[in-house]
């Protein structure tokens, strides 16, 4: 009887031990191996790759870009996604479901197809976005979007926005609507209700959405590869090149492991922050 739960977990444990833990450990090990143009991968234990990744300014710049992009994507997603979740939550019955489907649905549509859409919208000088911006008189000359950080940020924000809306939406569901009415009855205006009553309660939702969006943005591959191209490298596209073009697997592994460690640190730190600040409110 005591062994029953473990026996039930055996298939999953075997899978994870064999196909997750072993490969990940091998990758960490790989990042310490040596590599040469002609000799290939040499299974020795050296710090060369780590030294290169940590000291070379090329890698500094590339990691800085990766996290800059992730930061702005997270900021934009929170800034625009949270209000939309709130508006959605106030909608009436059929519309609420329909628009929830419209906004969350893209999550399940291929990232490649969605990014292709942005490539078409940006599309050089004649792209639809530039035409619209110029039509509204916001800009006088076309802005470059393709192969720029701005373009990557806009497309990634679109790709990851549903996660933010979903997280905020989930925390809004736990909110008692009577609490808002109570605040109104006590004389609070709509803006005060939003700032003093709603926002503090959905803050954990926004933060957990932000953690997800940040992690996914920093490790996103297809979108920066298509919009950023070969000229604008981020950590993931760089690792891809090392693996499939340069064939310097140990260096690529070092980049990937460093990215993983950085993300674990960010997620762990954010979770600690959320727990410490909101534990008493949401015990």
């Amino acid at each position, binding site marked *: 009887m005591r062994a029953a739960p473990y026996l039930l977990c055996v298939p999953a444990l075997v899978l994870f031990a064999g196909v997750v833990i072993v490969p990940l450990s091998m990758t960490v090990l790989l990042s310490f191996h040596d590599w040469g143009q002609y000799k290939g991968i040499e299974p020795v234990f050296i710090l060369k790759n780590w030294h290169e990744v940590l000291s070379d300014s090329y890698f500094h710049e590339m990691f800085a870009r990766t996290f800059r992009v992730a930061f702005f994507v997270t900021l934009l997603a929170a800034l625009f996604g949270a209000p939309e979740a709130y508006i959605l939550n106030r909608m009436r019955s059929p519309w609420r479901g329909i628009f929830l489907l419209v906004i969350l649905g893209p999550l399940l549509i291929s990232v490649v197809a969605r990014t292709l859409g942005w490539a078409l919208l940006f599309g050089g000088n004649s792209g*639809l976005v530039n035409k619209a911006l110029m039509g509204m008189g916001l800009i006088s000359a076309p802005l470059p979007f393709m192969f720029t950080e701005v373009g990557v940020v806009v497309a990634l924000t679109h790709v990851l926005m549903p996660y933010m809306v979903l997280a905020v939406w989930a925390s809004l569901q736990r909110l008692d609507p009577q609490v808002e009415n109570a605040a109104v009855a006590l004389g609070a205006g709509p803006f005060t209700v939003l700032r003093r009553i709603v926002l503090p309660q959905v803050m954990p939702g926004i933060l957990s959405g932000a953690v997800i969006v940040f992690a996914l943005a920093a490790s996103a591959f297809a979108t920066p590869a298509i919009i950023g191209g070969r000229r604008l490298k981020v950590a993931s596209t760089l690792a891809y090149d090392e693996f499939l073009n340069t064939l310097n697997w140990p260096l690529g592994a070092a980049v990937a492991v460093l990215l993983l460690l950085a993300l674990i640190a960010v997620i762990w730190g954010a979770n600690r922050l959320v727990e410490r600040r909101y534990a008493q409110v949401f015990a």
Partner: protein
Amino acid sequence: MSRNGPIALTYHVLFVSFMLAPILVVCFVAFTPEGYLSFPTDRWSLRWFYAIAQYPEFISAFWRSLWLGAISSAIAVGISVPAALAIARYRFPGREAMTALFMSPLMIPHLVLGIAFLRFFTQIGLGGTFTGLVLSHIVVVIPFALRLTLASAVGLDRSIEHAAVSLGASESVVLRRITLPLVLPGLVSGWALAFINSFDEVTMTVFIAAPGTETLPVRMFLYIQDNIDPLVTSVSACVIAITVAALLVLDRAFGLERLLIGRSAGHGR
């Protein structure tokens, strides 16, 4: 409940336009009659849809993605069910750690998984094989399968099984006649969500798929890397149409919100 004001509704319209714009653009451009990327203005044409037939790589990649998704999701659900029952029903040392482990592929970047699998499969002789693809896809879709099977296992009223036992049912009868039918909706929705995620996966698969085992998203990605022409928009339009159709069916059957948040609707009261 108070209503949204005009400012909120304007914002909402802009937001929805932003979310839909790139998807609609792809679908529009797919109908262009021209040989280059352009919006169909006065004339719509299906020529780029017919053109897909000329590229067997897309067709075979599509079928491969379908099979890959179906098989890996089915195995993922098969592995998730006993684990979900264990997590839902027992309090045992290591329970939290195991749950975290099984959900971890959600938090490990697919890039890292792709690299790890590339190295691993090459070492053990599975590099570029369909078996390798299936193994890797089981890992990335297991959290989705587990989340929904877990939700339905937790939502299951233990006393229903007790009732069956008190009426004389043996353990295997309870499992077959009571437990499995009751968690079936969770299993099906878990499989469906896992399938969609497998079908769309590109970041990890691009590392491990070889020519001959490319999935549809990988083929599309590699094609776009070379050049963007109306052909890839018509392929994308097909993918979008299939996904939207699946989405509508899933939403009617289970509720999309429940599928994505992973809440159990439960039975009865």
